[in-house]
């Protein structure tokens, strides 16, 4: 199971291991039999099996991407592609290791969320807390469930959109996900409905929790609004060392979708995610994407601005500590005229950590009146840390306004001294400077996530200075 060097996990302050509790685990490695077995165990319709098998073919044919981070440590034959969680057995809160409970305490994570994150199955009290929220959503006609349930219970809508934004042959890892996907969220917001509270993954109770190859599909009908929040800054527990998710968003005319992720994988994980949205006329799509932890992350949330007047925003933050490589960025494709976009990327690297910003901005020939601004700022915490920027621009239209700005700065001795001379410890001062640097990102988060992220950054700083 260990794809990355195992000793990395023991240094991971927020990781934990619950032993091997599972109901079913597929054979190591990937074959049409393994894929068929996954589909059969989920009692899926024939079209999905076919979809999975075709995707497997694509996966096998595609070479490993060599243009980005170093992926040579991944051994596909060593991976279990399907592990069914021991949900029926109901792991209890008492069984969650003390260490992880302490981490939750230090991060100040709400009770219900802790249980979700620890893989504890539905508890009575959380049922009560979220029952009314779920009832309100049902009244509005909003569908919110895990993706497997979406396929089972809402087959028409599901099939109409699934795999349309990111087809299985899009890239090697999207193909892999398409072959073996499990879990993730399915969200459908009917025409004109505004979902006022952010939909958080942990509202989904009694469902399969976050998987290794999760799949999320969000459809916002005309004039609707939804904010979906996935994950959080808490340790995302994963026994597996390859996480390859696919997220598809369809934003119909005049709709507004915001998708917020903060991920903090344990540092043995290769996190290779494909996220893409299409925005129709005057729709707004925002990706708010925070990446901490992992060994290697490759993630470039993208937005296809298909309808006139559509707007896309990608706001991302990446933190690379020792031995980590965060290769993240954004892609915005202006297909229609008068579309606008904003990309803001903030990255922090420490020690042997490395961050890369990889961006792609494309403007099609007929997309006149496009406005776009790209800004990427990197902060290096010491001499050793590294940051690179790879902004690709491909502009085929006239009459466009495009701005690009990139900065690299170091946590300066003068800033540290200034804070310290006012009585603030060096460690706290460093955390303040880093939190200040990512403040434009943090202020877009709901309060509890913002506080949590700030605390997490402070924890990351512990022992890193002095």
């Amino acid at each position, binding site marked *: 199971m260990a794809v990355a060097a195992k000793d990395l996990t023991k240094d991971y302050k927020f990781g934990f291991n619950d032993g091997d509790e599972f109901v079913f685990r597929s054979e190591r490695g990937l074959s049409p039999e393994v894929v068929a077995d996954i589909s059969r165990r989920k009692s899926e319709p024939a079209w999905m099996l076919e979809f999975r098998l075709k995707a497997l073919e694509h996966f096998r044919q595609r070479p490993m991407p060599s243009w980005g981070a170093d992926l040579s440590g991944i051994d596909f034959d060593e991976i279990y592609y399907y592990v069914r969680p021991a949900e029926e057995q109901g792991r209890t809160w008492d069984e969650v290791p003390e260490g992880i409970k302490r981490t939750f305490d230090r991060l100040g994570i709400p009770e219900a969320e802790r249980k979700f994150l620890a893989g504890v199955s539905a508890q009575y009290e959380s049922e009560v807390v979220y029952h009314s929220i779920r009832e309100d959503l049902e009244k509005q006609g909003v569908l919110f469930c895990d993706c497997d349930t979406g396929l089972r219970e809402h087959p028409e809508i599901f099939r109409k959109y699934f795999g349309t934004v990111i087809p299985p042959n899009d890239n090697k890892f999207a193909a892999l996900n398409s072959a073996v996907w499990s879990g993730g969220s399915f969200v459908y917001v009917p025409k004109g409905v505004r979902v006022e509270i952010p939909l958080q993954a942990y509202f989904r109770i009694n469902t399969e929790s976050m998987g290794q190859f999760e799949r999320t599909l969000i459809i916002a009908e005309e004039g609707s609004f939804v904010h979906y929040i996935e994950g959080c800054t808490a340790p995302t527990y994963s026994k597996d060392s390859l996480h390859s998710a696919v997220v598809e968003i369809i934003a119909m005319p005049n709709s507004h979708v915001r998708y917020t992720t903060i991920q903090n994988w344990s540092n043995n994980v290769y996190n290779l995610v494909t996220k893409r949205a299409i925005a129709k006329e005057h729709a707004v799509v925002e990706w708010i994407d925070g990446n901490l932890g992992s060994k290697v992350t490759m993630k470039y949330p993208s937005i296809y601005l298909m309808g006139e007047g559509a707007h896309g925003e990608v706001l991302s933050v990446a933190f690379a500590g020792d031995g980590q490589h965060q290769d993240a960025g954004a892609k915005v494709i202006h297909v229609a005229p008068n579309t606008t976009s904003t990309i803001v990327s903030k990255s922090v690297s420490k020690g042997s950590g490395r961050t890369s910003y990889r961006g792609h901005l494309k403007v099609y020939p007929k997309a006149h009146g496009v406005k776009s601004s790209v800004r990427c700022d990197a902060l290096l915490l010491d001499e050793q840390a590294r940051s690179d920027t790879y902004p690709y621009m491909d502009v085929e239209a006239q009459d466009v306004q495009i701005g690009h700005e990139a900065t690299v700065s170091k946590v300066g001795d003068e800033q540290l001294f200034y804070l310290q*001379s006012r009585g603030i410890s060096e460690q706290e001062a460093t955390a303040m400077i880093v939190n200040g640097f990512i403040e434009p990102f943090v202020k877009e988060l709901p309060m509890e996530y913002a506080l949590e992220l700030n605390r997490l950054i402070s924890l990351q700083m512990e022992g890193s200075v002095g």
Partner: protein
Amino acid sequence: MSEATAAGATLEIRDLEVAVDGKRILAGVSLAVPQGEVHALMGPNGAGKTSLGYAVMGHPKYQVTAGEILWKDQSLLGKLPEDRARMGLFLSLQYPTAIPGVTTVNFLRAALKGQGKSLPAREFLKLVRDQMSALKMDQAFMSRYINDNFSGGEKKRMEIVQLAVLRPEMAILDETDSGLDVDALRTVAEGVNRVRSQGMGVLIITHYQRILDYIKPDRVHVMAAGRVIASGGSELVNQIEKDGYDPMLRQAGLEVNDASAA
């Protein structure tokens, strides 16, 4: 003023030698500032005045190679800047540093907390608001990032807001007067005097007489070539104002163009 010193501590600098990147900047400075007194530190550019402030506050670039800095009967050598601040020392910088993303109010809260002087939220906000009005700063500065895109004068006033909020026992003010117009200078000086009236000691580093018209010094020291070449009463200020530093430099056996420690 000096009657307040009876029970106060003294900042005592003895034969202090300081190097930056191996280069000697201070060549044996001796100076004592008791709490409750105002001392002025004057001298030509490059004399080592700012370096002295940094060395007292513990900036890591300023390596003490010989001598001693004492405060409250303890050596400050080897202590971190935050520990020196917690012991009641304050340095107002000539060029205060911007910290983007950190609001003034969060900065001040963290500083008070760091010094073990946290206040209840309401009291804290009132204190900050009052001190900002006293320094004629708009309340909007509270939620602005500290010193970020502040004008030179705004930065200097913000330093004095910090002084008033943190209430140190000994403050070194490094060219707090530079870049201020007459009105701003008066506002800043009044701010310093309000805090001083509670028994704080002050070492004012300046080139000009004008701030000393508002904050009367008990003693005046003149530095050149990394050491103190003259000490006396406020008459020294007038002398400098009239004749410049040249006569003093000559008297100290320094060439006129040799005033810098370098």
